């Protein structure tokens, strides 16, 4: 989708972190010209700062044991902290990065050597190394840098190797190879730009670790002789009871710095698309629609349903004024292109959304229970027992680490109130009904041990477990091969018929609906633009989009190489403030009225259409 990446913004907290780092750098650079005291001058001798003087106007950060000015000392500590961090990070990232790319891209023996090195290095106790090195070479900055660098190569190498391995399998790298690109070119033009961001993000986190580790070493008296924050903290620690400011102020500065690098690193990581899971769901529901439900509750009754997703790229009108009634034993098909809103109609029924902030208006009733406004327990029970759901991808719909038996019996014991033994008996029956032989063995299997078609049969069994009166099937066969699709559609039609279930079947394949649906709804831009009995829809399509959709599929009767009728442009992202008909930019019959005013719903018996100028029967389809 165009512009969908705007959500990857640099978060403001990361900006705050960057600002703090900038402040440190500027202060360190300007330190010689700033009106600061000599950090090594003893205040008790010069008389400028008192012993353990409290922070105040005279000395902003207070004084230390011998009256040293703490502000001057903290500022003096910036330089070693940043130099150490920067040098170690640069060297580590460079060496580790080169090793990681080489291992991940060239593979083979080099990769095996690198992996061996990385594993060994990660297991190596750094502290032991530090103590040994200090004993042997003394504690100069160079020694500390060398040790830290040696220790950081392995984590960088591991990160970069992993990223390179996944990138190298991505289509665009394969495409570059297929173009005849050389290895060097692929490394520089294809891999490096995409590795830069994660590496940079990781380096910021690494920077923080270096500063923190140095502090720890100082505390143990193992660090350099220079004045570092770690030493200030170590020095003040002894006075923490009576003069806490001596240790706390440098500790706070160090904490803020570590935090700042972490925030910037996280921010960069998000920029690179590391998504955070949605945790909080805020759902707003508008007032009930005025018309009251009919006398006999239908398995599904949707009235004037609108669903708006509040996303980072603006509000999306995923469902726009949809009304739909599904009677017992009826199969309603929803057909539309990707992004048309067909899945969102289903999700609005069960209230599961991909984004955190959603508004729903109108009413949705399942077996007479208002699932938008009903009591939470009622809604949960209704959705848990009266509705069965089958999703597009049978692999992700099942939990990969649990046996089929658990996944199949759980809905029966939790919502259906069956005992374990009864649930197991029913599970075997269900597997038999969905055409899986050898049920006892299947119950013991894990999902990955089954083929795609078998997995989809299992998800159908799960959906049927509690005798639902309504089955919601979202592209149940799209991930399957045509021959398997035929088997699954035949199975669904049989089960639906035997159990007089209502079913909503979502797909992008109109022809498939011709095989299974009683009624077909064509969805475009969040709206049901046309609804009619299946045969009627194929014979007399009225909405201009339906007509175009039917015409754009290759005609099996026409000779090959016949040019296809095309719909120009591509489907829109529906917005709440759209005016007129959303198909207007692509419609051959559009008029000024279509662009300005929402088309009315024209009803002709069982045939509903939202169009200003529906196709007449005399026009060619």
């Amino acid at each position, binding site marked *: 989708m165009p512009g969908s990446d705007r959500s990857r913004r640099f978060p403001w907290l990361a900006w705050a972190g960057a600002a703090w780092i900038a402040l440190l750098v500027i202060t360190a650079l300007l330190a010689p010209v700033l009106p600061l005291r000599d950090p090594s001058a003893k205040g008790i001798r010069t008389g400028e700062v008192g012993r353990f003087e409290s922070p105040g106007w005279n000395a902003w950060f207070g004084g230390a044991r011998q009256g040293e000015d703490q502000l001057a000392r903290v500022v003096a500590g910036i330089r070693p902290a940043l130099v150490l961090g920067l040098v170690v990070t640069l060297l580590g990232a460079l060496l580790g990065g080169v090793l990681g790319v080489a291992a991940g891209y060239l593979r083979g023996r080099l990769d095996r050597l690198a992996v061996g090195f990385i594993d060994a290095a990660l297991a190596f106790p750094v502290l032991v190394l530090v103590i040994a090195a200090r004993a042997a070479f003394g504690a100069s900055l160079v020694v500390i840098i060398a040790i830290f660098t040696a220790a950081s190569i392995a984590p960088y190498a591991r990160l970069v190797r992993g990223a390179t391995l996944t990138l190298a399998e991505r*289509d665009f790298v394969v495409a570059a190879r297929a*173009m005849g690109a050389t290895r060097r070119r692929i490394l520089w033009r294809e891999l490096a730009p*995409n590795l830069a961001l994660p590496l940079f993000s990781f380096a910021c986190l690494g920077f923080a670790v270096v500063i923190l580790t140095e502090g720890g070493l100082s505390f143990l008296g193992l660090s350099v002789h220079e004045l570092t924050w770690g030493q200030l903290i170590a020095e003040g620690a002894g006075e923490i009871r009576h003069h806490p400011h001596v240790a706390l102020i440098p500790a706070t500065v160090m904490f803020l710095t570590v935090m700042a690098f972490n925030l910037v690193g996280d921010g960069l990581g998000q920029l690179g698309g590391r998504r955070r899971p949605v945790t909080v769901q805020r759902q707003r529901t508008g007032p009930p629609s005025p018309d009251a439900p009919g006398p006999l509750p239908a398995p599904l009754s949707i009235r004037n349903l609108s669903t708006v997703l509040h996303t980072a790229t603006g509000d999306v009108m995923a469902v726009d004024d949809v009304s739909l009634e599904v009677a017992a034993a009826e199969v309603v098909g929803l057909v539309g292109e990707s992004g048309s809103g067909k899945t969102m109609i289903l999700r609005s029924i069960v209230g599961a959304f991909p984004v955190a902030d959603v508004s729903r208006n109108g009413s949705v009733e399942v077996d007479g229970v208002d699932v938008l406004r009903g009591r939470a327990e009622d809604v949960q029970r209704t959705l848990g027992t009266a509705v069965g759901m089958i999703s597009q991808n049978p692999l992700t719909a099942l939990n990969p680490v649990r046996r089929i038996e658990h996944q199949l019996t759980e809905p029966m014991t939790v919502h259906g109130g069956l005992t374990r033994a009864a649930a197991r008996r029913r599970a075997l029956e269900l597997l038999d009904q969905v055409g899986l032989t050898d049920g006892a063995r299947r119950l013991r299997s894990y999902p990955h041990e089954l083929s795609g078609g078998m997995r989809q049969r299992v998800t159908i069994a799960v959906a049927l477990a509690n005798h639902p009166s309504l089955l919601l099937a979202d592209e149940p066969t799209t991930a399957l091969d045509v021959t398997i699709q035929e088997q699954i559609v035949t199975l669904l039609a049989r089960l639906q018929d035997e159990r007089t279930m209502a079913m909503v079947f979502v797909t992008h*394949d109109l022809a498939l609906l011709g095989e299974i649906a009683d009624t077909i709804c064509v969805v475009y831009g969040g709206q049901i633009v046309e609804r009619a009995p299946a045969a009627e829809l194929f014979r007399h399509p009225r909405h201009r989009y339906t007509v175009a959709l039917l015409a754009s599929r290759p005609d099996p009767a026409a000779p090959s190489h016949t040019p296809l009728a095309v719909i120009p442009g591509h489907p829109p992202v529906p917005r709440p403030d759209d005016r007129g008909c959303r198909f207007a930019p692509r419609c051959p019959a559009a008029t000024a009225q279509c662009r300005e005013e929402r088309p009315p719903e024209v009803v002709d018996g069982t045939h509903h259409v939202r169009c200003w100028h529906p196709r007449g029967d005399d026009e060619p389809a």
Partner: protein
Amino acid sequence: MSRPESPPLIEVEDLVVSYPAGRARRVQAVSGVSLAIASGETLGLVGESGCGKSTLARAILRLVRAEHGRVLLAGDDPLDERRLRRRVQMIFQDPVSSLNPARRVADIVAEGLEIWGTDAGGSGGRSEIVERVLHAVGLDPETFGARRPHELSGGQAQRVCLARALAIRPEMLVLDEPVSALDVSVQAQILNLLERLKAEFGLTMLFVSHDLSVVRAISDRVLVMYLGRVCEVAPVDELFRRARHPYTRALMASVPGKPFGVPPASRLIEGEPPSPIDPPSGCRFRTRCPRADQRCADVAPDAIAVGEGHLVACHHPVDPEESHDDRAR
């Protein structure tokens, strides 16, 4: 094994490709496939997932290594795989992910020119060539040149992929499910574009797809694969009118709406494809074939000619007269 009229641009001889499958075992994704594609011809390649279509396509470009067999380009075996890739270009199923997210459309399209030099693109400087191919695929260079891949719709991204491939004037395109990831309304746009580009650039195409209707619309000849082997090859009209292999018929019968006038597949075929790690003996289709007998289990069928350019690998091919109920349904 198929015999096109004009001299073949690409010939594949007895190709075998396998992947490691853990514990020192290998799975044969392509088991001895031969085919030829004439210059200027579109060969459609159909089959179900995992039958080895993509592997075959990639092996032609040497993106995967063949264990046995060879690929000839215009009669000779190009030892230099980079030279082969200069003349044969590939288009992938997922157009957005086959574009480098960090680069702009104009740079992506110029990629081949950077690799092969501007001369590869015909007359004009680099930016002229980029503009020319973007126009050819129906994108306005002004609007799209500076965009990045995530700012494109699927159809637009697939057009960019085509422009990138065409910039160095290849003789052939290998297209692996080029419209499967696209919306129905956009599929027709890309299919028409492919037909136009084929004429304009004089291209030869290998068109891989699982969608029979699409393959029928765009191909001159069609090859049907099952579990790494060729089942049937025929000119497109012959195949759709007189399919002889039981698997081809089962595939046609599974298409929703029964547009090819074959009785429902459930009467023809049962169960699921076996694992390619452990394929059945003899004919690989025999575990699902309604006509299978002992001979099918013992002997792998050879391809036999049953018509002009029509080959079938089956011991008991279906009588063409019984195969289609004349669209009367």
